[in-house]
């Protein structure tokens, strides 16, 4: 009597654990960065946090509530998982309210990284706007760790006001390690001595050789378009400009279909894409 389907056949059909099942992580540290942004430090309840590449993200969630994609903003050499979360409602509100001791759920890391090593031997320009510095912070830390492998390294960071800047307490250390940090705000309080204006206005002033530059850009999509344009006008080749794109994500592993930007699944082919690929897509409305 032949049996229809045996257990071995079923087991061999499923090679790995279900990628849709998360791991629990406990909140060990919480810092309120700005009025609507917090940074959480997380450690798994069991085992170690998986290694990640700067630019990758996790699906971060709370049991029974839901998950959202959040870039990893910590040190790639550190065992603690760090996420900077902006409260824009929904699941992010619940995550931003997490306190030390709370358990959150993590799936990942997913996505393509910044690939900053492609800048070895040349100049690197990092342009961040608002919360966009969070996915770039791991890059800054890697640049610090292997500073001698690059020539000039510059960070240009735009925010609404000085109070809205992320990680401002680290800038002095970054400068000490040979990174040119220029910050600019939309509005400066009384006595402000730094730059005030649009972040693109600093692009012509960065001291790098454009043709030898790898540029990494992250921020609101409109800002990234104008920054990329300014970088191209400066002579940075568009295939050497990388932007981190954002779309709705439900699975993070390329099967739910939500994050598609035409043929690209941003969770698998991105979120970091080079600008020569992106430029024609960003010109089409609602693509």
């Amino acid at each position, binding site marked *: 009597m*032949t049996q229809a*389907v045996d257990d071995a*056949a079923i087991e061999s059909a499923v090679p790995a654990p279900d990628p849709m099942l998360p791991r629990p992580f406990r909140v060990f540290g919480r810092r309120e960065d700005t009025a609507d942004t917090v940074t959480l430090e997380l450690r798994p309840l069991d085992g170690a946090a998986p290694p990640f590449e700067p630019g990758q993200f996790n699906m971060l969630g709370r049991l029974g509530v839901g998950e959202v994609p959040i870039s990893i903003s910590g040190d790639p050499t550190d065992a603690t998982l760090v996420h900077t979360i902006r409260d824009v409602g929904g699941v992010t509100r619940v995550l931003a309210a997490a306190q030390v001791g709370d358990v959150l759920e993590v799936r990942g890391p997913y996505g393509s990284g910044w690939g900053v090593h492609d800048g070895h031997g040349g100049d690197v320009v990092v342009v961040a706007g608002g919360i966009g510095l969070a996915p770039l912070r791991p890059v800054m830390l890697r640049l610090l760790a292997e500073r001698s492998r690059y020539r000039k390294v510059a960070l240009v960071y735009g925010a609404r006001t000085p109070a809205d800047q992320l990680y401002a307490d680290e800038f002095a250390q970054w400068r000490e390690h040979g990174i040119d940090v220029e910050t600019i705000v939309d509005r400066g309080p009384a006595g402000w001595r730094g730059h005030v204006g649009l972040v693109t206005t600093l692009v012509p002033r960065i001291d790098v050789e454009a043709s030898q530059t790898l540029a990494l850009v992250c921020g609101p999509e409109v800002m990234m378009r104008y920054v990329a344009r300014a970088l191209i006008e400066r002579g940075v080749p568009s295939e050497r400009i990388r932007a981190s794109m954002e*779309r709705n994500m439900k699975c993070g592993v390329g099967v739910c279909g939500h994050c598609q930007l035409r043929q690209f699944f941003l969770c698998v082919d991105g979120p970091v894409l080079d600008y020569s690929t992106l430029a024609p897509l960003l010109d089409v409305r*609602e693509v």
Partner: protein
Amino acid sequence: MADVKDVVIDVAGLQSLIDLLRGDGWTVRGPMVLDGVVGQGEIRSVDDLPRGVGDEQDAAHYRLRDRGDDALFGYVVGPQSAKSVLFPASELLRRVRTGTGSAVQPEPPAKPEPLALFGVRSCDLEAMGIQDTVLLSRSAVDVHYATRRAATFIVAVTCSDPGGTCFCVSMGSGPDPREGFDLALTEMLDDDGHRFLVRAGSDRGAQVVERLPSMSVTAGDRAAAASVVESAVGRMGRYLDTDGIRDLLYDNAEHPQWDDVASRCLACTNCTLVCPTCFCTSVEDTTDLATNTDERWRVWDSCFTSEFSHLGGGSVRATTKSRYRQWATHKLAAWWDQFGSSGCVGCGRCVTWCPAAIDITAEVAAIRATSLSDAVPSQPED
């Protein structure tokens, strides 16, 4: 695969096939008339099959008709495909009892019921292959689809009476099943009797053939079976010119035809529901306080909904125009870049089941006729 010859069986032989599969532990699921359509249900007897039933299909039109003969497969696809069982509309991903401590142990997925899918058309077979690529062959395997797929036996059927919205020939996916099945049947109803040519497509299919009460295939049978296919090829209801279609749709993102479609499209998501290759899903986490249970469900989703592309400030695809364009461009163009094939198998369901009678083949032809692309210049139909 063991070198098993094709055989011919009669209607009694078909009943034997059903009995054999059931005896082996398969639940046989196949076409039956339900609620005025050819739907899917459990088949225990040949009498459960839609004997003498035919279908009339056109844009926004589906009717069953009396064929006036005894053909058991004389219709084509109804609204459901294998997707309904292999990739169900809701799939439980995990269930967790809360309040049991910090360790969260999900319940393991239930073992799937072994299913023999009976009467699968070649377009749907092709669609299963496409879903295999999407859900099994990439870095993340969908464990539930994989498990269900491993527990299926496929009995495919050649289409003898293509519907008014069929265009499998344009998409290279039919009307004759070529691979991916365990058994393939071609129904013949002529002066030589009501019989079926049976081909084995796998080892286990061959093992079943060996156990069937069968007759050897005559030259007449071969000719009759070939003519079923030839006749079907010549009676496609629709045609889609796929030449350069990827660049055609990529380059025509601003074509006015999209606005025209948008004035008719209701964004009702019917097309994505009936399409056998659509795979978009959402994940829903729910909490039941009464039972202290948290569940994570995978549910079908559609790119036609306003929330599908929701970001912090709103939806990226806010207009019906952009969503129809996304669906058509993904299905016919981007799919090539993503998966190395078209996403469309020409089953015609999206045309039949669209309440606004939108015909994807006509929309593409309209764009092609006045293409804005240099790479694929306009080609007005003769």
